[in-house]
């Protein structure tokens, strides 16, 4: 009699442990599923992104360029930031991040006259940015993200660059998916 009671308890405990294990793995799997959903959305936008950069117009205090942006898979608006990075990082193997940005007096130096179709675009600040694979790209002081209008037709971003000696400008594009800012492309200017 005692034997059957103890084996019954054993059975209940085994089932309970099984339910808990499945519950935990289900929570983990749904997180994973959500992450892969965000990632595939970001990758989709990244794959459709088509960027062209104009010839530089040289001036006494820098040079003016414009960048046209079109996305064949996405018609919403994107976010972008522009800063200067040392030419040392200008090769395919290095990952670009605002943590490498040129800093003067403790602040990131941005280009002048950032305009989209002649008007100053709205901007927000972000403290956390992600790569397309959802790895952390940047976390720290707020960084400016300018917002583009909806990409129903190609837009042009006009700006004036004056990089310090040995530095080049880089523009990074982000999509906002579930309140995360995820990189969808970049271009050296």
């Amino acid at each position: 009699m005692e034997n059957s009671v103890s084996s019954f308890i054993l059975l209940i405990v085994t089932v309970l442990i099984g339910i808990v294990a499945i519950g935990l793995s289900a929570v983990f799997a749904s997180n994973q599923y959500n992450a892969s959903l965000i990632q595939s959305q970001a990758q989709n936008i990244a794959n459709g992104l088509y960027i062209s950069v104009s010839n530089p117009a040289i001036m006494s205090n820098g040079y003016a360029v414009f960048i046209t942006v079109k996305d064949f898979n996405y018609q919403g608006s994107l976010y972008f930031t522009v800063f200067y990075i040392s030419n040392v990082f200008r090769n395919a193997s290095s990952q670009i991040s605002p943590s490498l940005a040129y800093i003067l007096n403790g602040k990131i130096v941005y280009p002048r006259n950032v305009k989209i179709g002649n008007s100053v675009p709205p901007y927000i600040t972000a403290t956390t940015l992600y790569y397309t694979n959802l790895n952390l790209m940047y976390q720290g002081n707020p960084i400016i993200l300018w917002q583009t209008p909806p990409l129903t037709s190609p837009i042009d971003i006009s700006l004036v660059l004056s990089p310090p000696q040995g530095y080049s400008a880089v523009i990074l594009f982000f999509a906002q998916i579930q309140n995360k800012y995820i990189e969808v492309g970049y271009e050296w200017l």
Partner: protein
Amino acid sequence: MVVKGISVVVGILILLMFIIVIAVPLAIVILSQPTSQEQQVESAQPFKIIAKNQYEDFAPIIPNEEGSPEPPVEFIYAGNRSVLFVLNSNSTPPYPLVIQYLVVFDGSSWITLNITKNGNTYVAEIAKQFPTNGLEINTYNANTEYNGNPAIEILLSVPPYENQPYYVAAVTQYGNIIYSA
């Protein structure tokens, strides 16, 4: 002893059924994600190829009367605030060409100019907002002639810096940048 052994086995079997019923369908859903994603990657590719091919409209590929190659479309800054799209083949360009807006360097920055039609003349004025309507480059929209070929003339409200043609650019419906010559 024998009864106890069977009960544990039954418990494990129940556990196994839980895994099969819940975990396996979930895993299938997750693993099927990359397939649909790859499909979308492919869907963008043909558009990018068309977008790149559009540059051929401006590449010298058709022979003219003297036998030397000419581009189907020429983008010319004629001076005096006037730009011309000349249709050398006397027909619509091989790749559909819509000029969304013009971009002119005025000495301090690149300025976006929106193209509007005013009677029979096209005027490029400082754009206030996006999206711009754009102008399709075809013989139907031609309003003048250049060396016997149909052409579209657009008058710029902002002249390029030092009247240099390379400070006048046109942006197409795909975002390609074309410079005037």
